[in-house]
């Protein structure tokens, strides 16, 4: 594979900008190059569903799921803001309420184990609580794939390739899942058990890896420019965002 064929995102963007007669905003190119736009605070931003303490809790949960390492973590990426937007502008009222109730349950769990609210426990205690919750939140794959099909990669593929259209991030559809599993009470109980934590994790991953920090610093967006169908994995060395 010749290096000359290797087109970086920056080159691709610049090239496309030329193709488009320069209509691609310079800020897009600058943003893609710098990879630091995620640090810019937005003073105007206000949560619309979550209270300040709930927002803090969501942010803490998300950071435990995707922590800062040598690359940004969920909090750096503002995942809690994305989750507030999903709760406010996307989830149906019933799901939104269920999610907020799930947050209260986190505090109840911490109370039971340590006598204080979740955010008052130590980092190690928080991680232990979440590790236990994570372990009990995933029913067998077959059941999960059937009830929450959109969170399954195969269904995601099927949806997108069935029309050869854009592949994009998909948020699962818990309301419909509950209806689907309604015929089998045991399955429904199984699915209800981990519902909240699965949503927190799913929204954290979605919010993180579709953010500029996740998609450009931790990973890289699959660049436009050329299509190379079969190249050595080591020449890329990471997953596309």
């Amino acid at each position, binding site marked *: 594979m010749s290096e000359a064929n290797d087109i970086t995102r920056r080159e691709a963007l610049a090239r496309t900008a030329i193709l488009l007669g320069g209509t691609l905003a310079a800020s897009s190119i600058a943003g893609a190059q710098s990879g630091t736009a995620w640090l810019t605070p937005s003073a105007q931003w206000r949560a619309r569903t979550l209270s300040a303490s709930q927002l803090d809790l969501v942010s803490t949960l998300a950071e435990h799921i995707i922590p800062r390492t040598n690359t940004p973590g969920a909090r750096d990426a503002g995942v809690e803001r994305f989750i507030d937007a999903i709760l406010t502008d996307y989830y149906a009222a019933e799901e939104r309420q269920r999610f907020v109730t799930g947050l209260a349950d986190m505090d109840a769990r911490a109370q039971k184990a340590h006598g204080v609210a979740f955010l008052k426990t130590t980092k190690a205690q928080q991680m232990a609580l979440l590790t236990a919750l994570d372990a009990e939140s995933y029913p067998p794959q077959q059941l999960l794939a059937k009830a*929450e099909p959109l*969170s399954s990669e195969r269904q995601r593929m099927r949806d997108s390739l069935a029309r050869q259209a854009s592949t994009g991030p998909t948020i699962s559809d818990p309301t419909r899942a509950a209806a689907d599993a309604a015929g089998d009470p045991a399955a429904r109980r199984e699915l209800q058990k981990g519902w909240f934590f699965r949503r927190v994790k799913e929204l954290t991953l979605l919010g993180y890896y579709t953010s500029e920090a996740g998609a450009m610093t931790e990973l890289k967006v699959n660049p436009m420019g050329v299509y190379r169908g079969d190249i050595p994995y080591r020449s890329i060395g990471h997953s596309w965002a």
Partner: protein
Amino acid sequence: MTDKQQDEYDAIVIGSGISGGWAAKELTEKGLRTLMIERGREVVHGKDYVTEHKNTWEMPLRNARLAPDKQGAEDYPVQSRTGQFREATKHLYLRDTKQPYEEVKPFTWIQGDQVGGKSLIWGRQVYRWSDLDFEANLKDGTAPDWPIRYTDIAPWYSYVEKHVGVSGERLGLPHLPDGEFLSPMQMNAGEKFVKAGIERHFNGRHVTIGRVAILTANHKGRAACHYCGPCDRGCSTGSYFSTQSSTLPPAMATGRLTVLPDSIVHSLVYDAKTHRVSGVRVVSTTTKATREYKAKVVFLCASTLGSARILLNSKSSTFPEGIANSSGVVGHNLMDHHFRAGASGRIDGLNDHYYQGNRPNGIYIPRFRNLADAATKKEFVRGFGYQGAASREGWGRGASAPGIGVALKRRLHDAGGWLMSITGFGEALPRHENFVALSDKTDEFGIPILRIDCSWGPNELAMRKDMQQSAVEMLEAAGCKNVVGNDDNKPGGLGAEPGLGIHEMGTARMGRDPKTSALNQWNQAHDVPNLFVTDGSAMASSSCVNPSITYMALTARAVDHAVREMKARNI
């Protein structure tokens, strides 16, 4: 110019999608002053592709799929049923509350509502039909024979393909004829693995890269694809075929085209003295004022269901059941491709292989059932092909299994394993009992809405079993692991209901006999010589391959005929 002169044209084209764009291009290039009427808003090439190349983080919901029960889909209860309806594409779909319809049985009518119609959001897969398709009605006796054969349309396929720019691989198959191809797109390692396995185990089956109306080389002033991925947000470089990129520019260049957006056609006006359509009644969707436009010839390209609605609503004493409907077939024989039955599986290994760039295309497995030889015969008639793709799992896999923290982040940094998925696209039979009619209710413009009554029949249901079984069989034989079949059809419910394939056809079919068909071999109404219908409604059967390139070829052919007839003063 007086108002009267302004309202008179040589030709009127109703609709600006794939067929309407072609009609406008051909008519204007042949010297006719043409009016193109479009129900929806203006969409200017480039400028109005407002989500093109937008990064996910620039969208508040990160380009979420807007499913029916989600906020943001309230005014789109039907459009939101397709997975293509997302934050980044919502503005290119019809707001259902503007044009409702009655659904007797589940039928998902996906519609564009803009200049360019669905050509901006189509799947771009293009396959020529063959005599296996054009002879199908005659051979199994399901419905009246097509009035044309492959030799009639083959030169017109070449004609439109040379303009469109079609990328694909030549296979030399009689039942999937090769076209005028630009170089094919590449397969990835997973697809090459599956291709090798299937072709090794099944004599006569092929896995090829999809044939698409997307440029793999610069072509007629349009740039080669830059592989950004989501074509259906619009493409400023014109790298896929749309009205805006490909048919509107040459039509406008003639100086003879007038485009009239925001104008919905109420009906066609019939002149009983001349036995001709004399005009088109139009309602402005902004002011609700009505106006009549006149022309010597009318091309109806308003989509399969849109055109049927206009024909049925064009009532006169000569045509009490709608214009060009002395046969009574208008609105009947509604078809779509049935899909979402197939299989998926893992491919172990190939971990040192990856891909770069966002290929807006997949693989195709041509039909292998009910071909000429007895060995391919099945208990159902007609056949199906598969579309599919392989890819490596991304970060999304982290959401369906336990794991958190640094270990999860490290794991998701690497690409996951390979998955291969294929889904069948099956031919549906033309059946009289699948039909649309005018409802008693009207829309806000005073036009009766449609009542759609359509469902899959025994042949489609039998075929779906084979679509799933054969998919599982092929992926397993190819060496995929953990292969799972699927069939999303839920009789009486949503999942793989008619309409979802967005390949509606058949509501004003072509045929040899005016008693059993609405159009002749030139897409010309048997009853009304200056009326041509060249969208999906003209199809007498549905084949199993994507239909749009056939609409294009039939449209160019029909215009050629119409203009010759006009010169000969027969129209």
